[in-house]
């Protein structure tokens, strides 16, 4: 489970499954096909942004929150930590993202 939105050492990256996704954007929704599970997922723009950002490099929660706030600035609301936790957890459950170094760094 994702930790708090504060000074977490956890950084997240795409899993192999997350890297091989097929994408289709429809209106304001994204449809993803995950070949490793043969499942089709519907995700929102913020979840899609998280996946796109993690495809570039591993990113920690705090940075992700700031990047999301910047990306969706025109919406006028800052992302709350609980919402970010929810989306991160969901993407982890689907096996699309994973922690890079959080556990080893805390040992």
């Amino acid at each position, binding site marked *: 489970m994702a930790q708090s939105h504060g000074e977490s050492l956890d950084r997240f990256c795409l899993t192999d499954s997350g890297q091989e996704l097929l994408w289709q954007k*429809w209106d304001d929704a994204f449809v993803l096909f995950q070949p490793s599970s*043969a499942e*089709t997922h519907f995700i929102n723009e913020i979840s899609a942004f998280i996946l796109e950002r993690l495809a570039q490099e591993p990113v920690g929660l705090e940075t992700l929150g700031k990047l999301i706030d910047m990306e969706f600035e025109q919406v006028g609301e800052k992302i709350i930590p609980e919402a970010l936790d929810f989306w991160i957890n969901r993407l982890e459950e689907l096996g699309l993202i994973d922690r890079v170094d959080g556990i080893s760094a805390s040992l």
Partner: protein
Amino acid sequence: MRVNDCTAVQIKRLLKSSEFNVQLGPFQIRIFSNIASLVPLLSQLYHFYPVVRQDSISDLHIKIAYPRGLRHWYRRQAVFSIDGGQPFAPYAIEHAFPALEWGINWCIATRAHHLLMLHSAVVERNGHAILFPAWPGHGKSTLCAALVFSGWRLLSDEFGLVRPEDGVLLPIPRLIPLKNESIDVIRQFCPEAVIGPSFFKTRKGTVAHVIPPEDSIHRMDEPAKPRWLIFPRWVANAPLSLEPIPKSQAFLMVATNAFNYEVLDQTAFRLVTDMVKDCDCYSLVYSDLNQAVTAIDELTRSNHG
């Protein structure tokens, strides 16, 4: 050669020797039966369909016959079987023909995984097809029957067969089964339609089968490109509504409506994505068949190409 080139005696002999081999769209279906009452029904309702050479390879070997043993004598039933298995409980002998039709559909839906199969009616005009994906009871077959007697070619009232290689729709212009009130609705809408006998108290109520126009059967090897996705729903006394819907919603509805989306994995995702991209997507709510047919006609004429 077509079924109507055969006499009743010939059809009976072909059925009894497992040589009644008909072409239904992309499938060759070989039927065995010892039920004499099927002969006039097949002669009447299948008379436009091609009979295939006996030495060709059939896709499905189907049997609809009296049960074996004593049951044959004390209880008149029809048993549908394929490859030695009996997927359904025996039917009353009077329902042998609708049982055959349902059984063929079931066999296609559970076996033809070389194609993406949508649960959808499909009609075509000027090379452009409309798909009507819908759940049972949403008025798909009734609307489809009305359209094919209003200038549209029938590809199917049940299957949107999508060829993976190029995404085109393959016709399978089978008989259109109508249920209950729909039978009289179509009789009034298109008196020229040839409708077979009504089968009462079947597992789906009263059922009768519409013979597709001869042209649709004659052109069963001409595929069509999907152009419109219209999700129909018949609602008693509802005013007509034909409204665009978001493509994300259309994608979800098509994917969940397919018989074998999960089986085809990535191929199905790609085919449904391409189809939704290529199609204008609408939701149709109707109660008056004339209004629905007119609205579809206007939509497709004004938005053609």
